[in-house]
C-alpha cells in the first residue's frame, strides 16, 4: 500500500485495548493499526462504539486511567510511546504537538472563565509570550475562525455563545500552539446542520494553510469523504477497510463500507430508498469468533468464522474480508 510521503506523526500498530468493568473486560479495540503522516487529513469512520474515539484518546493518553488497559500492540506518537512518557512530557506533547477538538462544544469550555482567558492560558502554557502578545495572538486566531469581533467574544463567558461559536473558539484553541497534528473528534455532530459546513471548512482551511495533519473522526461517511485524503473504516474495534478516499468511495471493498455508503443520500444510487444496516454491533464483552461483521453481512460464508486479515486489495487499499481476499486471489 503506497502512502503519501512525509514524517509519520502517529503510528498505531495492532493496538488492542479493553475496559475493565465489573461485568468483565470490554474488548474495545482488537488489533487496530493506522498511521498519520505530516500534513495529511485522515478520516476514521464507523458507527458509535466502534472504537474511533478510543483509538485516538489512547494515542493522547486521555482515557480514564483505572478502567482502560492496553492489552497488545503499540503507539508511537512523534516517536514516543505515550504510555511511557512522564506527566510533564505528556503535557508538552498535548497542546504543543497534538491537540484535540471534541464533540460537545457546549461543555468543552470552562463555564466560569472568560473565553479570552482560556485561550490565552493555553497559548502561554506552550509559548513564551507575555499576556498582551498572547491576547493579540488569540484575537488573530479567532479572526481566522471568521469571528468578526474577537475582542467582544474574548470577554464573553461560554454560556453567552452559541454552539457553533464555541466550537470555533475550541478550534482556535486547538490551533493556537501550532501543533503538527489535530484530532477532530466528531466536531460537528452536536451542531446545527447549517453551521456544520462552515466548521468543517474552517478546520480544513486552517489545517491546509498551516500544514497541520488532521485526524477526522466521524460516523458520517459524507462528511469524511469531503475532507479526507485517506480513510480508515472501523468496525467493532477492528479496521475493516483502509485506503485513499477516492478508491474507497469508488469501489468499497468491505461489505460494511459498502453498507455505510448505501446509507448515504448523496452517495447512494439515485431514486432508490436509503438502506439501513440490519442488526447492531456485536457484544464486545463477549465477542463472537471470526469476522465481527458476519452476523450483519449479506456475503458471509463459512470462511468468515475465522478472523480475516487486513489484506492488500490494490496498491492504495486494504480490507479485512474473506470474500475480497478470495476474489483478489482468483484474479
Amino acid at each position, binding site marked *: 500500500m503506497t502512502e503519501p510521503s512525509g514524517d509519520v506523526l502517529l503510528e498505531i500498530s495492532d493496538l488492542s485495548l479493553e475496559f475493565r468493568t465489573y461485568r468483565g473486560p470490554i474488548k474495545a479495540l482488537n488489533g487496530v493499526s493506522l498511521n498519520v503522516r505530516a500534513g495529511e487529513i485522515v478520516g476514521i469512520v464507523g458507527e458509535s462504539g466502534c472504537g474511533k474515539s478510543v483509538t485516538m484518546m489512547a494515542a493522547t493518553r*486521555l482515557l480514564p486511567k483505572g478502567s482502560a488497559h492496553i492489552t497488545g500492540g503499540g503507539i508511537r506518537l512523534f516517536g514516543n510511546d505515550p504510555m511511557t512518557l512522564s506527566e510533564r512530557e505528556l503535557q508538552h*506533547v498535548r497542546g504543543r504537538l497534538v491537540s484535540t477538538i471534541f464533540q460537545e462544544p457546549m461543555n468543552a*469550555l470552562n463555564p466560569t*472563565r472568560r473565553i479570552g482567558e482560556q485561550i490565552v492560558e493555553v497559548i502561554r502554557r506552550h509559548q513564551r509570550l507575555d499576556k498582551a502578545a498572547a491576547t493579540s495572538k488569540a484575537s488573530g486566531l479567532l479572526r481566522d475562525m471568521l469571528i468578526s469581533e474577537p475582542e467582544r467574544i474574548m470577554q464573553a*463567558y461560554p454560556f453567552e455563545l452559541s454552539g457553533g461559536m464555541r466550537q470555533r473558539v475550541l478550534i482556535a484553541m486547538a490551533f493556537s500552539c501550532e501543533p503538527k497534528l489535530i484530532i477532530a473528534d466528531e466536531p460537528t455532530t452536536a451542531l446545527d446542520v447549517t453551521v456544520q459546513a462552515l466548521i468543517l471548512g474552517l478546520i480544513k482551511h486552517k489545517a491546509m494553510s498551516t500544514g497541520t495533519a488532521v485526524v477526522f473522526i466521524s460516523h458520517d461517511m459524507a462528511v469524511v469523504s469531503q475532507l479526507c485524503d485517506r480513510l480508515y473504516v472501523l468496525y467493532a474495534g477492528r479496521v475493516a477497510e483502509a485506503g485513499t478516499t477516492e478508491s474507497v468511495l469508488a469501489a468499497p471493498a468491505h461489505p460494511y463500507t459498502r453498507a455505510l455508503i448505501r446509507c448515504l443520500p448523496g452517495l447512494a444510487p439515485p431514486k432508490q430508498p436509503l438502506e439501513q444496516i440490519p442488526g447492531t454491533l456485536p457484544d464486545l464483552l463477549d465477542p463472537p469468533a471470526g469476522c465481527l461483521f458476519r452476523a450483519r453481512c449479506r456475503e458471509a460464508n463459512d470462511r468468515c468464522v475465522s478472523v480475516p486479515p487486513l489484506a492488500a486489495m490494490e496498491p492504495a487499499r486494504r480490507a479485512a474480508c474473506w470474500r475480497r481476499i478470495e476474489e483478489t486471489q482468483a484474479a
Partner: protein
Amino acid sequence: MSLISTILRRLVLLVFVVAGVAVITFTISHLIPGDPAQLIAGDKASAETLAHVRQELGLDKPVTQQFVIYVKQLLSGDLGQSLRTRRPVAGDIALFLPATLELGIAALVTAIMIGVPLGVLSAIYKDGPVDQAARVVSVAGISMPVFWFGLALILLFYVKIPILPGSGRITLGIAAPPRITGFFLVDSLVAGDLKAFWSSLYHLILPAFVLAFANLGIITRQIRASMLDVLQEDYVRTARANGLSRSAVILRHALPNALIPSVTLLGLAFGDLLYGAVLTETIFAWPGMGSYVVSSIQTLDFPAIMGFTIVASLGYVLINLAVDLTYMVLDPQIRELG
C-alpha cells in the same frame, strides 16, 4: 441582575422575615405555660407584689397591646429588658455574641481550610490511602458527639499533655483588649497587644477545632463528590488535552466549578456551627451566646429568648444572602443572568 440590586432586594425581604419571626416568637413565648412574674417575684411573693411585678413588665395589658408595644420597641432597636440580668437584651447580646461569632468563624475557617483540600485530594486519589483516611476522618467527625470529643481533647491536650488551654478566651492575668468589635483577635491586633492576641488565639484552638470537626466531614465529602463530578466534565478534558499542568487543571478549572454546589453547604455549616457553639461553649467555658441562651431558657427570660431568636434568624437570613452573593462571584451565569 447586579450585585447591588440583589442586595437591596434581599434586604427588603429581610424586613418581612424578621416581622414573621417576631410574630412567631411573641406568640410562642406567650403560649408557653409558666409565669415570668412568679419567677421574678419568687414563690413566696404576695398577690400584691405579683400584680406589681406584672404591671412593671406590662404583662397586665391585653396580649394585642403587648404585641404593639413589643413591635414599637423592636423598630427602635430595643429588644426589651432581660428579666434575669435586668439589663437591656440588646446590650447583653452585643456583649456575648462576638465571642460566639469569633468561635464560629474560626471553626468555619478551620473546617474549610482542612475540608476543601482534603476533599480535593480524596477526589484526585479516589480509593487511595488519602481517600480512605479522609473517609474515616469524615465519618468520625460526623458521628462523634461534640461534648464527648471536646472532653476527650481537653483530657488529652490540657490534662495529659498540657500544651493548650482548656477554658476561657484569654489567659487569666492578661487583660482583654479594649473592646471595639468584641473579637479578641481583632481587638488585640488593633490595640497592638500581641500578648493578648497570641493568648486568645491559643485559647481558640481547641474549641474551634472541636466545633470544626463535625462540619469538616460533611465539607470533605461534599467537595469530594462535586470534584469527582467536575473532573468528568468535558472542559476538564479540554484543559488536559491542551497540555495544561495538573495543578492548573485542578485549581483553575476543576475546583472553582466544584465549589459552586458546595457554597450552600458552607452557609448551612455556618448556621450549624453557631448552634453547635452552645454545647462547645459549655464545655470550654467560653463566654458566648450559648451559655446566655441556656440560662435565659432556664429562667423563662422571655425578652432575652425572643431577642436572641430574632437576632439568630436575622443571622440566618444574612448567611443566606452571603451564600447567594458568593454564587454570583463564583458563577458568571448567575451573575450575568440573575
